[in-house]
């Protein structure tokens, strides 16, 4: 086709066309970087919130605090379409006091903190995928100003497979089939708990500290095995994770002669893409429990990050439109430069729409290639942004003490580059429309008279 043939040739040979290509590439690259970070913040925020929340949480109706933990009830929830894992839990408040280390005595009560206890069946909870191993800190990772943790040091704590073996060794038979075990990491018979990162930071509790947790219904001893940072201060200031049997003793929900063991509710994980509200309704119908989605419980934080991301998106779209003016200027110049050629083409029989097509094709290709290059450039820059910042300013771009995450808030979600590619191609085509139309209106007779 004539339009493609000549349009591509003009694009290749004219410097002005390269200018348009560069402008498009840089605009799309900048947009991809900005949206990659904005989406990354949303993702990190969502992961942090969902670390404390499951997709669905089924609890007794208001006024009741516990339900009998029966296999029938677990099955009812597990059989709901879309549910891929179910795990019981107990949530309760407790006072946590460290031991002084002298004569097995408790420390001064001024060291007592209010703990929000989350007792879980670790094996089931692992399947729930609630706690991201990246949120667990290495045992000695207590420095809030420390640089992001190296990947190999992440997840060495309590909720990982390492810890599962550990739990069996310290005498809690909550995990079946652990198989051959490595040598015990320590000989303490006391069960371990994972505490929010702010607790040791503010209370002087460290990994290995023995603590007592008590409620009005019971008290237990435990040892701090690891810390966890969700990034939400209110959570990290109070959260204490422990194995379900320990929580049942603390909350007086353990099995007795009169009743089976009880739990505070169930958490369920859904398959990707499943409508959480519909699944919640189905679980409610089957289990007679009160079910809420994670967004209903703690969705506001994520929603605020999403709103900021959307505002950035609006700004990026505005910038795309500004770039379109450059495309317009470049193609107007190109039409003026090639006026003689266009007159000759029209003179020897090219139709006006063919001449118009020359510039529309050139614009479409410039926008398409420029956007694709911008996409590639943006994605190439995203991973090196933080190291580059370190190198230039000797400090992290995303300080972990602000983000509470050793993970960089970067997303490679292709929806944003695809959006910019489509948008730039569309508006680029519109920008070339007027110059292209002018090109098609050239009077060939006048051009040929001028030439002769």
């Amino acid at each position, binding site marked *: 086709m004539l339009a493609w043939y000549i349009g591509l040739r003009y694009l290749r040979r004219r410097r002005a066309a390269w200018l348009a290509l560069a402008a498009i590439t840089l605009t799309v690259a900048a947009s991809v970087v900005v949206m990659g970070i904005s989406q990354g913040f949303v993702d990190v925020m969502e992961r942090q919130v969902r670390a404390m929340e499951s997709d669905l949480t089924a609890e007794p109706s208001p006024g009741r605090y516990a339900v009998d933990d029966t296999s029938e009830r677990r099955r009812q929830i597990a059989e709901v379409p879309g549910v891929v894992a179910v795990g019981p839990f107990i949530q309760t408040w407790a006072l946590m006091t460290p031991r002084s280390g002298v004569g097995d005595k408790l420390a001064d009560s001024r060291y007592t903190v209010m703990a929000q206890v989350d007792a879980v069946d670790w094996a089931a909870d692992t399947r729930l995928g609630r706690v991201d191993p990246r949120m667990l800190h290495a045992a000695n990772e207590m420095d809030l100003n420390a640089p992001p943790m190296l990947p190999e040091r992440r997840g060495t704590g309590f909720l990982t497979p390492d810890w599962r073996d550990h739990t069996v060794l310290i005498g809690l038979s909550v995990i079946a089939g652990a198989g051959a075990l490595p040598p015990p990491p320590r000989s303490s018979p006391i069960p371990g708990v994972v505490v929010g990162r702010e607790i040791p930071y503010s209370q002087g509790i460290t990994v290995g500290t023995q603590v007592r947790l008590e409620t009005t219904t019971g008290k237990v001893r435990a040892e701090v095995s690891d810390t966890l940072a969700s990034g939400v201060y209110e959570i990290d200031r109070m959260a204490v994770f422990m194995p379900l049997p320990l929580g049942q003793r603390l909350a007086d929900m353990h099995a007795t002669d009169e009743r089976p063991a009880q739990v505070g509710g169930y958490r369920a994980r859904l398959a990707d893409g499943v409508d959480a509200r519909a699944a919640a309704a189905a679980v409610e119908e089957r289990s007679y429990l009160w079910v809420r989605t994670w967004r209903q419980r703690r969705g506001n934080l994520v929603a605020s990050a999403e709103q900021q991301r959307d505002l950035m998106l609006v700004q990026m779209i505005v910038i795309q439109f500004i770039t379109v003016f450059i495309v317009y200027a470049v193609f107007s110049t190109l039409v003026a430069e090639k006026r003689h*050629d266009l007159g000759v083409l029209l003179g020897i029989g090219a139709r006006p729409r063919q001449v118009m097509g020359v510039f529309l094709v050139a614009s479409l290709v410039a926008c398409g290639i420029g956007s694709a290059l911008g996409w590639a450039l943006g994605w190439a820059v995203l991973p090196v942004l933080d190291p580059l910042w370190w190198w230039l300013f000797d400090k992290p771009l995303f300080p972990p003490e602000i983000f509470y995450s050793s993970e960089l808030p970067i997303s490679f979600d292709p929806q944003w580059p695809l959006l910019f590619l489509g948008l730039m191609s569309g508006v680029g085509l519109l920008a070339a429309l007027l110059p292209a139309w002018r090109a098609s209106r050239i009077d060939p*007779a006048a051009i040929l008279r001028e030439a002769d």
Partner: protein
Amino acid sequence: MGLAVSGLAKGYPGLSVLRDLDLAVADGEVVAIRGQSGTGKSTLLHCLGLLDRADAGAIMLGGRDLAPLTAAARADARARHIGFVFQAFNLLLEFDALENVLIPARILGLPLAAATAEARALLERIGLGTRMHADVRTLSGGERQRVSLCRALLTKPALLLADEPTGNLDPATAKIVLDELVTLARDRKASVVIVTHDGEIAKRADRTLELREGRLW
């Protein structure tokens, strides 16, 4: 069938350029049109080439009146049936010699393989076989005009219009180019109308007419 023009008139506000002009050119015939500057030679050529719309009259080519055609049909007729050779060559500088010759085929969407073979044959025949892929900016005036001639003849037009085709060439080159133009056009049985001041062209033409007072004499 050739070209048959009758009653052609063309004017501008306050100025009548062509008046009731008649012209007939047989297939393979070469007609030279001479006239003083400003007598309307280029206007006549533009009307014959459907670049300008005549005010009145018929332009029959191959038995079909082209004058009343719509703009799109006129463009199509130009591409299919009329070849142009300009004094200033009017080659496209972004393309090499062969690519320039192939432009009409691309306009018409003709099969490229056959068109390329035809273009190569034309270029070989006029001695540009070794310069097919040369940047047209590096070609001499005579070579450029020969490329222009090949482009005009690629689609085997029924009518070849040439406006001072040797105007920018030295006498020796002009003679060569003119020979090639006449020979190729006759071989292809194209009706040829050449507008010129050049007496040599008039000698090579089958007929020479003079444009005066809006008519051909």
